[in-house]
């Protein structure tokens, strides 16, 4: 077994928290189950890593298996990376084709390897129909850098691909080309949607998140654990109707279920600065450049709780509430033509 492969496997195992190591190695599926059970996870992680490398050496692991281990690691800890969503469009209104995984792999590899020989490409399909592609890039005279690989997640028969932000931007056009060719699409563009939580990104673009629709048959509300309030009959809530109105409006906008998890929303303002006429006229000729960034561990839940907490008026501004619907969290706000008011422009 190659020294670089051994080192790579060792470093990958060292990245994993100790409690997850057995599950990860089992999901990898390369080492025989009996040896895995015999693996001792009590000593220090360095010792465990050494033991794993030893086992791999006995089973003669190659770079392919090491790459699959890396994919499994990143799949388990997918929220450590920042994912960007790309949308593909069909050039012609073709019929839905039956997705053939082997043909996809072949076309993808062929497209990339026709331009760059020194790449390592690996695929793995997971239970939820997600195909993970791992590409380690090299150049014409250097070997592929296994430690800075790019990951692409693609669900068959969907026009979306999720690419993890990798430092190497120069290889991105080639990657996009390969994706379109392999999946029979015509064009690809980057959407203004980025987050750490891959599942939430999938929920937004696959429309799996909870939306409210007007219907004659409201779904029965799930029983929520509402602790019985200590209602003192002498206390009267003066603004009870207002609170109920806020609750209702909030529910119409956000729905009942959990919101997708985004970490930030960024608004780039290119509007004119509107001030009292007393201020200097010169500054009004130019756009007032301003960047507003909302960040939170869970942005949409935070926005949902703004109105009930009394910190904002309900209904919230449509600029904030349209994030899942428009599937973007980077906005450019320009002047509306003809009327001096901020308008929403989607490029």
């Amino acid at each position, binding site marked *: 077994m190659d020294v670089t492969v051994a080192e790579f496997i060792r470093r990958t195992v060292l990245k994993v928290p100790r409690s997850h190591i057995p599950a990860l190695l089992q999901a990898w599926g390369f080492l025989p189950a009996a040896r895995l059970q015999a693996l001792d996870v009590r000593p220090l992680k360095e010792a465990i890593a050494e033991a794993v490398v030893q086992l791999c050496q006995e089973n003669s692991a190659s770079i392919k298996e090491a790459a699959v281990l890396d994919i499994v690691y990143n799949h388990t800890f997918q929220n450590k990376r920042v994912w960007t969503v790309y949308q593909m469009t069909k050039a012609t209104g073709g019929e839905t084709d039956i997705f053939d995984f082997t043909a996809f792999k072949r076309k993808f590899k062929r497209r990339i390897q026709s331009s760059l020989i020194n790449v390592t490409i690996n695929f793995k399909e997971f239970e939820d129909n997600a195909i993970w592609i791992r590409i380690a890039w090299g150049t014409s005279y250097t070997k592929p850098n296994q430690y800075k690989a790019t990951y692409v997640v693609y669900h*068959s028969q969907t026009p979306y691909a999720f690419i993890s932000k990798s430092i190497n931007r120069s290889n991105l056009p080639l990657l996009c080309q390969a994706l379109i060719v392999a999946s029979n699409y015509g064009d690809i563009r980057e959407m203004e949607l980025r987050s750490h939580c891959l599942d939430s990104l999938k929920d937004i673009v696959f429309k799996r998140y909870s939306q409210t629709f007007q219907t004659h048959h409201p779904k029965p509300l799930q029983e929520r654990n509402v602790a019985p309030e200590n209602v003192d009959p002498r206390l009267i809530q003066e603004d009870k109707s207002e609170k109920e109105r806020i609750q209702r409006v909030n529910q119409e906008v956000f729905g009942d279920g959990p919101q997708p998890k985004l970490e930030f929303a960024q608004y780039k303002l290119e509007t004119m600065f509107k001030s009292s006429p007393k201020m200097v006229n010169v500054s009004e000729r130019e756009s007032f450049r301003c960047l507003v960034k909302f960040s939170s561990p869970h942005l949409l839940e935070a926005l949902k709780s703004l109105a009930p907490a009394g910190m904002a008026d309900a209904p919230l501004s449509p600029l904030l509430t349209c994030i899942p619907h428009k599937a973007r969290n980077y906005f450019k706000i320009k002047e509306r033509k003809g009327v001096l008011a901020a308008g929403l422009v989607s490029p």
Partner: protein
Amino acid sequence: MEPSRAYLSPPSFLPACLPGVLSRLEKLEARARALALKQEEAEQQQRQEVARLRARIKQLRRRRDELKGKVSLQQAALGRREEATSSGAEPVPTARVQERALLQWKVETVEAMLRVFYLTGISGKLTERGVCFCLSTAYDGNYLDSYYLDIVITQPVRIHRHSVPIFIPLKRIAAKYLQTDVRCFLATLSAHLNAYVGRKYQADYLQKHFSAFLGGHWQKNSLYNMLAFNYDVTTESSTFPFRVKLLYGDLDRSLPTEASVSCKEDVPASLLEKAATHSSLFMNMALHKAFDTFRKAAETPDNTE
């Protein structure tokens, strides 16, 4: 100055400058006395005020009790009068009751009608700008997910929001039918959704309930229109793995258009026949029903299957 000196003459042994201090003291004493008087007066006034208010409270309470008594008497009288005349003459209360019963019946009928629409699979509700359709899906006697379409009636008609999964070719169906024939659009979309949900149900049911038969190597895609897996076929002597690949060419049907069953070359000829029968079985009946027949055949061993 004079009156104060009248009752307070300085003792003879004190020097002559003291009268100034003492007069100051006298003045202060007088002021203190005056203040004390004022305070006493104020307190007295306050006490009188409190007593007056208490008396007023008692008065108001008495009045309130009187009025309460009067109201209850009147209500009792009214009740007695209503009872006395309920059997016959007063038309107003009973008409109201009848009206209410009629309204309730109407509401219940409408609700039942809406529920029936919901159960048919396509139901809708008018919104301010258009209609919101609810397409509910069902397969094999189970009601499954509902999908929603919010349509805005403008020129041209467009879909504002929807919860249809991304791999259903909504855009293609909309481009074909939405502007011309909404009914056809809804029917086609409903057929696609029901078929997708049916295929998914079959695959999930198979994996859950027939895992003993299955061999692994599952291949499927998001639309569930390609399914490939290994399964075991037991004969009297041994178990043979078969591999089946199902292709669902028609997206609005939940039965495959192509089923190819393959096995290894070195198998007896009877098994090849079996493969052919299995293939036609998969083409004609739902997956889990097909496997049900396999299981029954395995339980009652016979050679004719």
